[in-house]
């Protein structure tokens, strides 16, 4: 096959789904309607206060914070795939690196909004910048999430520049869109100087994102670990959270890979071999996560200190036992066993397993946040029954749903207007492979 024809084919294949299609319009309308309903729930919360949620004085962090932790966790995958694997020279990640970056950017930027939905006085957000106390882990979180969003955006954008130039030259795109592409391609013409610059900057970002990504989730874990509460007062919380984050992120990427491959007809680029490799990666990160789970629960479970014992009893055999064990079994242990079988590491079964893993990751975050608060050191007395246990309300659930819908909207838009697979890089790799 002629190299020129080949690159022509690649370009056409990858760019086929780009642009406003009918299915895109239907999908977006559905998303926006759902989002609108959820936003109405938020206006209720704005008007009536956080009392519309199931949160009360003792269990004052619930679904919102768990969802925030989950979002931050899922966004970490961008770093693992692009930076850790990329820098170590794994070539197979090229077609999925951008998918991972899109997911990272979507989750990280919405995480910031999620935290605002948990605030009693969202209009006072500027106070964080006016009166910020750098001793507060919240300030570290704000700093590091902002930084991570910027790095993720740059890491998505930089390798995209050559592709944008290609897009702007495509005749079948509406003129206004081509203009945007041209503007965003920053006058890219592929000169050696430009290539060198992009390569150098990408490399800086890939190195920079490793500590920042570790920091973003470690700091999030410190929101809990920095308090003297039983169940949170743990020194392995940082790595425990980070390892859990890779599990959630890998699952999210597998799901995204499945749907992009199917809906955008990218079977030639996202191959079974990619799923096989992602399956192995998920096993690896799940094993690390399992190791930290054992650390996190076995050590206090062995000693059974007064407050810890109450909390552990609640999640092992009490109110949260069913949720806890199903999350551990369906979300960690069974997926590890299944994914060790080669015939399971195929797109559809993997997508289903990943869906379980992702759901379990979300529930696990809720189990980290809530049960600890239901068992403070001093008894909860002389309060209404709904102060003693946490039950999320519909309003609260809708507001949480809004954030998930927003992630879908962002992922859809990014993947609809920009090629989800790097064109230039794929062509280059094939050329080099031919030689």
């Amino acid at each position, binding site marked *: 096959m002629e190299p020129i024809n080949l690159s022509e084919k690649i370009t056409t294949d990858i760019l086929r789904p780009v642009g406003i299609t009918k299915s895109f319009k239907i999908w977006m309308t559905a998303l926006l309607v759902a989002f609108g309903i959820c936003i109405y729930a938020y206006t209720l919360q704005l008007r*009536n*206060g*956080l*009392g519309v949620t199931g*949160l*009360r*004085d*003792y269990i*004052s*962090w619930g679904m919102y914070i768990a969802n925030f932790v989950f979002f931050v966790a899922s966004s970490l995958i961008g770093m693992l795939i692009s930076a850790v694997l990329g820098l170590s020279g794994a070539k197979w990640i090229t077609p999925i690196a951008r998918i991972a970056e899109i997911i990272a950017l979507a989750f990280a930027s919405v995480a910031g909004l999620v935290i605002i939905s*948990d*605030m*009693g*006085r*969202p209009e*006072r*957000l500027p*106070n*964080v910048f*006016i*009166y*910020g*106390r750098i*001793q*507060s*882990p*919240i*300030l570290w979180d*704000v700093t590091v999430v902002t930084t991570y969003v910027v790095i993720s955006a740059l890491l998505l954008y930089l390798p995209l520049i050559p592709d944008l130039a290609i897009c702007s030259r495509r005749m079948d795109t509406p003129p206004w869109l081509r203009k945007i592409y041209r503007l965003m391609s920053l006058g890219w013409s592929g000169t050696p100087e430009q290539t060198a610059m992009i390569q150098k900057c990408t490399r800086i970002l890939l190195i920079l994102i490793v500590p920042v990504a570790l920091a973003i989730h470690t700091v999030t874990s410190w*929101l*809990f670990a*920095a*308090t*003297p*509460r039983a169940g949170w007062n743990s020194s392995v919380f940082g790595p425990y959270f980070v390892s859990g984050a890779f599990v959630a992120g890998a699952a999210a990427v597998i799901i995204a890979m499945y749907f992009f491959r199917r809906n955008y007809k990218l079977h030639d680029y996202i191959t079974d071999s990619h799923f096989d490799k992602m399956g192995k990666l998920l096993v690896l990160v799940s094993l690390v996560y399992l190791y930290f789970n054992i650390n996190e629960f076995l050590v206090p479970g062995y000693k059974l200190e007064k407050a810890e014992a109450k909390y552990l009893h609640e999640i092992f055999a009490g109110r949260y036992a069913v949720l806890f064990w199903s999350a551990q079994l369906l979300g960690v242990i069974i997926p590890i066993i299944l994914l060790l079988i080669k015939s399971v590491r195929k797109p559809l079964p993997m997508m289903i397993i990943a869906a379980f893993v992702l759901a379990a990751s979300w529930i696990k975050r809720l189990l980290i946040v809530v049960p600890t*608060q239901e068992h*403070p*050191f*001093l*008894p*909860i*007395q*002389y*309060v*209404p*029954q*709904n*102060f003693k246990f946490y039950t999320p309300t519909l309003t609260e659930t809708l507001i949480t749903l809004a954030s998930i819908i927003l992630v879908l909207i962002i992922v859809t838009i990014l993947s609809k207007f920009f090629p989800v697979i790097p064109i230039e890089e794929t062509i280059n790799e094939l050329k080099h492979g031919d030689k």
Partner: protein
Amino acid sequence: MEDKEKPKTSRRKFLENLGLLGTGALAASAAVYSGYHYEHSKNKTGRKIKVLTADNQLAEVDAGSLTISGKPTLTALQMRGREGIKHRRWVMIIDLSKCRNARKCIAACQEAHHLRPEQYHINTLQMQESEKTAPFFMPKPCQHCDNPPCVSVCPVDATFKRPDGPVLIDNERCIGCRFCIAACPYSARSFNWIEPKFANQDKGKTYDVELNVPQKKGTITKCLFSSDRIREGKLPYCVSACPNGVYYFGDENEDAVTNGTTKETVRLSKLLRDNGGYRLMEELGTKPRVYYLPPKNRLFPFPEEGNIIEKEG
């Protein structure tokens, strides 16, 4: 003038040349300066207000130091609330052997601070350390720790430790993140989940950080050691409302505490020494300013389920 301008412009150029490093240095110096500025502006808001004096002279005063016909402004109250009372270190002693759960302290507190019945600055808990040990009632206000975990985690300096001991909350600044609730091992804080009880009645009142009234939706509310009362030389609301002589309150620097019921003033050190005083959860290193005297000679029958409020107020 020109001579004065020159070094300035050259410095600006210097900064420009430094580029990135300069931006960083600026950020750092801004942080340092804001600290410096804070110290110097503690008594000033920088906002000037023109006032007419009694002899018809127009004077310009700082907004922070201005009080209108005896009523201090919000800024003045906020500043006063942060400064505290000089040379004092307030302490509270709770004698568990005397508490019989009259809950007068709670009623007085909730009335003074315009709280709902389920919102506690102070609550009396039914305690039993282990199966065979005697049950007892334990009044639990904020412990006003000298190493307060709640203040450490506050992102906006809304809750703060005062030089004289109390941990206060500024409802005009609180963003409602509830990190302090999560961090407090004593469950001492409460939140205004819905519109406060007296929201309509308190409309237009100037917010007093030492009384925490009016309460504000979406912000934290907590025990203040009745800072407004101690400023007037009066004992806190809960302390003076107790009919059983449970509470002592006073100044650690004076080594004296006064009983709220009997009004007897005794030596703090002697009281703690003679009765085996202790603090709650010493092992957490929070260094509370509230001391407890052990629940010896427990003779009151302990109710089985307490008169727990089951419905939401």
